[in-house]
């Protein structure tokens, strides 16, 4: 009994929620790893070299992608809410994802 939701704005919402959620789950881990800098720098280094593995790179790519998607998606939302209403929301949503792909792509190209 769910309405068909496969329309662009709903997908944009899901993407924003999933990315937000993923970021919120990732962030404590990130903070934790960083805090090793103080107490166990060698462990941090171990981690960082472990992070050189391709599979981890791909995961990082995903993470940056999510962050970018979330940021630009969020900007889109705030633009829609606060700036005088502009109709082509769907284009904006797509644009935000596009930019995200671009940035994370750049990042990916940098690391490999």
């Amino acid at each position: 009994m769910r309405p068909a939701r496969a329309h662009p704005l709903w997908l944009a919402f899901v993407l924003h929620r999933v990315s937000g959620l993923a970021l919120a789950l990732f962030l404590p881990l990130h903070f934790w790893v960083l805090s090793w800098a103080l107490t166990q720098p060698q462990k941090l280094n171990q981690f960082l070299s472990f992070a050189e593995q391709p599979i981890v790179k791909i995961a990082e790519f995903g993470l940056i992608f999510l962050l970018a998607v979330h940021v630009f998606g969020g900007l889109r939302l705030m633009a829609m809410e606060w700036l005088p209403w502009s109709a082509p929301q769907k284009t904006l949503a797509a644009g935000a994802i596009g930019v995200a792909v671009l940035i994370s792509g750049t990042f990916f190209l940098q690391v490999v």
Partner: protein
Amino acid sequence: MDADTAPLEVSVWRGDAEGGSFQQFEVPALENQTILDVVSWIQQYADATLTYRFACRVGMCGSCAMMVNGQPRWTCRTHVKKVLRDRHVEIAPLRNLPVIKDLAADMDPFFDKWIAAGGAHRPSASRDDPIPGIDPADGARVEASAGIECINCSICYAACDTVAGNPDYLGPAALQRAWTLLKDAKHEGRSAILDAVSGTGGCHNCHSMGSCTVFCPNDLDPMSAIAGLKRETTRSFFGRRK
């Protein structure tokens, strides 16, 4: 029987507030048949106890909305051809509202929220005053007029996942009505509207999913109206009320 005259296979949700399940019916396929006609045929000829609701038959009263193949629709204006999948169609009561019986939902929560959103006009003049001259092309009036033809059918309310998850949320139609009043030069005490839509169930809960706008059979755009409310409330938050 050829493909055109083979009966329709219709799954209809039967039950009440306690719960229920789908029941199958075979309904003769006829020309110019709407989903309301299908449901009516079942009640008139197959199962006299089937409950549903309609009044105007032409998309004006907004009392015949149901879920058709999982999507909210005015059944009186939904041609069978448009929704038939392989001769099959599934009909259920409108989502996000309590069920009274079978296909009839209880619309009271929807209207309670309409009022709670400040959706009733407050007069700034009386019957003894002349009718105010208002330029129909005035910017605010154009915005009000864009949302005024809502027939409170609750389709958008049923389509919205925020409503599904958040029982306090006033929902798209009520908020859109509040927006039209905010833009109505005749409405007294417009700041009261901003308060009414800023509470725990207010416009700020909307995630701009846009299903309301996609599904509104009247081509209205509650999502933009809600965005407008967010903008105005934000402005007043910073004390830049005009």
